[in-house]
């Protein structure tokens, strides 16, 4: 054993050194929330938040629509966050179907009220004979139908958690590892201290499939418009053909999308295109100007705490130079390693030969964004047990409830969560009207966006 490796072992057993296993120190899963970061809570000890307090007493919650994979609405941290009455799937038909066709008003009064209000909206707007309105009314008034066969996806579930997860408790059971364990059932309550940015909002999952079907996309966008969502999250890229102008379906997607942007605040992931371009539909984001009537959505890129682009995110200056508007907020991974950003983490500069550990850098955050995952053996972080706990059911473990999340998708969810909290808490925008894309998009910047843009 080399001297270096002995030293590293000693360091790992010494109490004064960082906790954690592997090559990285441990970190709090909600590290992004306190002041100095996103500014949602004061600290991670007491979790005081004037904005949460204001949001908790708001007349009505902000409605956030997520157009993505189906969301695991049974996730314990998403109980109460998901509007079960409006949750709708478009992956199997252009007019969609309610994920839960029948809701008991006694058990789900708020969700049932949402659905009844939707029915009233369709009738008031005379949409009974439009394909979407007709289909929805048929489902509400018609005979019981089977729910659509959809399976929750990890991507949508992670988006929902970052935006609106609530702290919760679950029933945890120690698994029977041995015959003798069966004599002693050990069950206890376990806190799940995870929280989204706005745990008082209501999320409407609008699920779509991965295939770029314009009819499906137009149906989902129509629905987001119909339910009058305050915020719409599209952390996805839609691969439309180069000759899309020749296709009625794609022309309709563009029309409905821009109409939606005029009604709601729409946040789209900037995606992984070349550094100076955005994916579609984020590419429809435009800076306001006399020649630009439709400013479209807000594109969302990813940056470090000090506003440096992350390695995979489009370059902010180039995007803005091309006439787009883009904001940037936190996500997982390190900033670019180039002459502009400077040396952050140089994997070739090894100080620990045994572990391959590079030198620490105070500016390099070892944290990943953590969010909610599909419970059980599916999802980004699958359980080791072939057991999917239902709503209120017992859990054998809690790890599968959470996952690392990254990309401009995570940044988009964070931006949407911040704006939803700023709207619901009536947060003051403060002085000035700074460009919200210029620095890390935090709660204060979100308030300015809500007020001025």
């Amino acid at each position, binding site marked *: 054993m080399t001297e270096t490796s002995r030293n590293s072992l000693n360091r790992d057993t010494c109490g004064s050194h960082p906790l954690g*296993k*592997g*090559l*990285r120190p*441990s*970190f*709090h*899963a*909600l590290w992004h929330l306190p002041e100095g970061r996103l500014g949602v809570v004061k600290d991670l000890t*007491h*979790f*005081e938040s004037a904005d*949460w307090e204001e949001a*908790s*007493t*708001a007349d009505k919650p902000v409605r956030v629509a997520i157009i993505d994979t189906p969301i695991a609405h049974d996730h314990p941290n998403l109980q109460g966050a998901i509007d079960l009455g409006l949750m709708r799937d478009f992956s*199997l038909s252009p007019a969609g179907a309610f994920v839960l066709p029948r809701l008991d008003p006694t058990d789900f009064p708020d969700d049932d009220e949402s659905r009844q209000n939707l029915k009233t909206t369709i009738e008031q707007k005379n949409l009974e004979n439009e394909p979407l309105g007709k289909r929805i009314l048929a489902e509400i008034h018609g005979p019981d139908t089977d729910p*659509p*066969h959809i*399976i929750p*996806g*990890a991507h949508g579930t992670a988006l929902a958690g970052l935006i609106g997860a*609530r*702290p919760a408790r679950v029933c*945890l059971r*120690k698994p029977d590892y041995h015959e*003798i364990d069966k*004599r*002693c059932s*050990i*069950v*206890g309550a*376990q*806190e799940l*201290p995870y*929280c989204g940015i706005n745990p*008082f909002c209501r999320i409407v999952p609008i699920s779509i*499939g*991965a*295939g770029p*079907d314009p009819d499906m996309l137009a149906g989902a966008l129509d629905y987001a418009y119909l339910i009058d969502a305050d915020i719409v999250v599209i952390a996805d890229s839609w*691969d439309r053909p180069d000759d899309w102008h020749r296709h009625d379906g794609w022309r309709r997607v563009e029309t409905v999308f821009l109409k939606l942007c005029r009604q709601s605040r729409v946040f789209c992931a900037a995606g*992984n295109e070349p550094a100076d371009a955005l994916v579609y539909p984020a590419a429809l984001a435009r800076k306001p100007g006399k020649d630009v009537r439709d400013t479209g959505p807000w594109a969302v890129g990813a940056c470090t705490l000090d506003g440096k682009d992350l*390695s*995979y995110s489009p370059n902010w200056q180039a995007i803005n130079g091309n006439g787009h508007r883009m904001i940037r907020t936190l996500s*997982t*991974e390190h900033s670019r390693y180039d002459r502009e950003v400077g040396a952050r983490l140089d994997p070739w500069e090894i100080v620990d030969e045994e572990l391959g550990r590079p030198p620490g850098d105070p500016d390099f955050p070892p944290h*990943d964004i*953590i969010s909610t995952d599909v419970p059980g*053996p599916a999802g980004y*972080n*699958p359980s*080791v047990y072939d057991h999917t706990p239902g709503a209120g059911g017992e859990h054998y473990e*809690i*790890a599968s409830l*959470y996952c*690392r*999340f*990254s*990309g401009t998708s995570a940044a988009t969810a964070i931006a949407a969560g911040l704006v939803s909290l700023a709207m619901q808490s009536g947060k003051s925008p403060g002085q000035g009207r700074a460009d919200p894309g210029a620095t890390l998009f935090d709660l204060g910047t979100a308030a300015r966006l809500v007020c001025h843009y």
Partner: protein
Amino acid sequence: MTATQADPPGKAKYTEYREILTAAKLIATDTRIEVQGDGYNSLRAALRAYEQEDPDISDTERVNKLVEKVGAFLDRSLDTPSAFGGGKLHKSLHKSLHKSLHKSLHKAFADGGAVQVATGGLAWPTIEVPWRELGLLYKARDRHNWDRLPLEPPPAVDDRMAEIPRLRALQEKLRLPENAWRRRRIEIEAGNDLTAYMLPLGADVTSPGSQTAVMFQTILWLGSLIGLVYKARFNASRPHVLDPALEPYIPVPAYSSYPSNHAFQSYLIAEVFARAVPEHPGLPALFRAAGEVAENREWAGLHVASDTAAGRRLARLCGPLFEEILKDQIRVVRAEWLGEGASR
């Protein structure tokens, strides 16, 4: 920090949320995530109750072993922060690596590069008859109604006839020298070769994506069976029956025309892979490749466009079914792309 009687419901929630957040912490490390806090005390209490109340335990040694075993487990968790219920935390997809892959894929497809490469089929892992998955498929029939999915019947014969002139035009173009590569692809794809689906994902002979190839083979197997159910139901005539002047480029299978099984299987592969690794940057390219395989059957004179559209529609309807019956394969495929071992 408890809610007072005067607290409105919303404010009580705020108080409750803070109680939970301050009582315990969710801590992530390199490979694990766990709750640190005192929630485990209720488990210790449960153990004590068991020791005092279970009248059937008479074997002292056995009880001691139990207490020692569980107690050690509890102490380990209570003396240090509680880790009960915690577990593995997988790494997320490495975004910057995938961005590079994504760019190269786009470039390859824009230049026709990948298309050119795909004109020679590569050697992919093959499988025997997937008996286990076949069993799961048939067990799931009543639950998913996969033999009664709402697939529209084919268009009327006149409408199908109206699709024929396009096939005649494609037939002429296929004979041109510059379409030699497409002729070669049609020949390769007649045998359900995987090259068209694997290259968009970045898999080649140097990184063969074995688990992914195995899953794709399984999808081809199962998809073929489902497609034949619908072909038999609608019994639609092949294009060369509608118009005997058509000369299909390859032998026409004995099955009827609607829906196109190649379109169905290709899009099904894309749909299932999109559910397995939803953030894979090659997904758009995979869907496009699926479309090319499907369209090549029209070039070959085997299907009209409405057959292709029906195959794609059937693939979407079958997505949830396949996600369920292939859940074990999906787990290892995800592990393959995330660069980690399967979780169990």
